């Protein structure tokens, strides 16, 4: 039996867009970006796809990518397929606007996982670069009742277990769990592979499975909001920078050192 791997991925606003393009619609309490800046697959989720594909490189495995959101840019969300994933499942519903509510999202994704018959291993990015919540994967693990290892920088599987190098502040731990398990990964896993031409061709032919909330088995209690968003704003920065200018770079450097000494900072 091939190992069944599920990867959770989110479509996000490009975090590398120019700062000037970032603005907030205060009434809608939403971040807006010009339509010229396309969304991307959340960076850490691409690391998750990479971790899954590395396993698939060395053994028989299938990789299914699952995402939920109010709407999708299909060409963007097909990127994991062009990298080598086998299937894409999109849970799309206009009502999913409130993506800050991790409980809701985790509930949707875990229902979808159950509908897909479950996975031996679920791999997710450590957090999404929009709301930086870092909650959905841990919530999915809780809701499914499976083992959970976060912040992986290396993920290996044996026939019955997963072995993860988990990042800790001053190094890493090697953590093991029996399958089924859920692992979150960080960018330390390494650069995700680029789609190959063959991969891109294959991805264009693949049709994602598209579900809406009504396709999933969701009880009313799990749909109740857990979080309320009161306000969203761009923080003020009132720091004024004193640029130290000498005759040349070396002189500026000396003046900077003198300045810091004078201010008793060094």
């Amino acid at each position, binding site marked *: 039996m091939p190992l069944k791997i599920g990867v959770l991925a989110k479509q996000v606003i490009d975090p590398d867009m120019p700062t000037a393009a970032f603005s907030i619609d205060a009434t809608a309490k939403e971040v807006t970006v010009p339509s010229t800046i396309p969304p991307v697959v959340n960076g850490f989720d691409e690391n998750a796809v990479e971790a899954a594909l590395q396993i698939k490189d060395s053994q028989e495995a299938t990789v299914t990518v699952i995402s939920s959101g109010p709407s999708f840019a299909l060409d963007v969300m097909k990127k994991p397929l062009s990298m080598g994933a086998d299937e894409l499942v999109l849970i799309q519903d206009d009502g999913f606007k409130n993506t800050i509510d991790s409980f809701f999202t985790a509930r949707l994704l875990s229902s979808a996982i159950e509908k897909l018959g479950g996975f031996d291993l679920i791999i997710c990015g450590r957090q999404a670069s929009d709301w930086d919540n870092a909650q959905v994967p841990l919530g999915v693990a809780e809701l499914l009742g499976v083992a959970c290892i976060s912040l992986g920088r290396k993920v290996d599987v044996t026939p019955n277990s997963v072995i993860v190098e988990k990042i800790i502040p001053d190094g890493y731990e*090697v953590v093991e769990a029996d399958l089924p398990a859920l692992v979150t990964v960080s960018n330390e896993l390494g650069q995700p592979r680029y789609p190959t031409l063959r991969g891109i061709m294959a991805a264009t032919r693949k049709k994602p499975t598209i579900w809406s909330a009504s396709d999933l088995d969701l009880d009313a209690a799990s749909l109740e909001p857990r979080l309320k968003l009161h306000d969203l704003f761009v923080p003020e920065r009132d720091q004024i920078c004193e640029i130290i200018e000498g005759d040349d770079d070396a002189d*500026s450097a000396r003046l*900077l*050192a003198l300045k810091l000494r004078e201010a008793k900072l060094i």
Partner: protein
Amino acid sequence: MADAAGILIVGDVIDGQLGSTSKELLAAGRQIANNLNESVSIALLGSSTETAGTQAIESGADIVYLVNNPALESYHIDFHLAALKSLVDEISPRIILMGRTAEGRELAPRLAFRLGVGLAQDCLEVSIDTSNQTLLANRPVYGGSAVAVVSCEQTPQIAAIRPKAYEPLETDSNRSGETVSFPVELDTSIAKTKVTNVVKEESEGVKLEDARIVIAGGRGLGGPEPFSDLQNLADILGAGVGASRAAVDSGWVPYSYQVGLTGKTITPEIYITVAISGASQHMAGCSGSKVIVAINKDSEANIFKDAKYGVVGDWETILPAFTETVRELTQD
């Protein structure tokens, strides 16, 4: 849980002493407790937590729960979660404050999910709307480009607070409080994960989180070698050395050097950045620094929006001259 009341802090104990995260959380807890006119309790998990318990009272706690079971001796997420769940079920707090530390990053969301409630993640500030006893949490989102004000819809309301967002209160050895022993039963078979090895990759010299001065390098350094120049300067100043994610991703220094949203949170007196652009995700880990100094060749770089002092120019010339002057100045 209609009769939920009080604030519960999930504390940390390091080598028998109350951790700095606990002290920061107690400061935050005291502030909102005074607004609510309710008490602050703290949960200390493990054994030999009595000393830390006394310190917690001196730092602002009214009630200390010594949550004990042999399985809590060293940190294990599954045991800690189960123990906390038992305590929360028993005492029904209105609000739970946790630290977004290495452990808290996992513990807080999983506790919230286990309780079926929401979590205000990675908060910089919490306050109380006294009209409805709601906890309002300010938390950076979009890597720090925006701030969201959120509240939890169910009880207990849980917030995970970013390390160093609050200053601990002055300790007061005259404060009184109650200590409650809370033994929990834990089934050892609930442990779903096992740590088989721990590998330390500490940065050399002064510990980043404790350093009064930190010098950090970014992608503009172009390679690993210049980090030894930063280390030289750091040695003169007794400073720690940090890095941006771009420098870590390039493999120039290990992850333990990374400052930022997904790295370390530091609040030194002075933070000197060399060839770092100042992306919001980087600043998320250092914006609490008292003074930021920027050395960058691009006068438009974001870092100059946060820096107090800056030099626009090439680090290859600036750094040696700066280091030399610092050496002379600090010699006498």
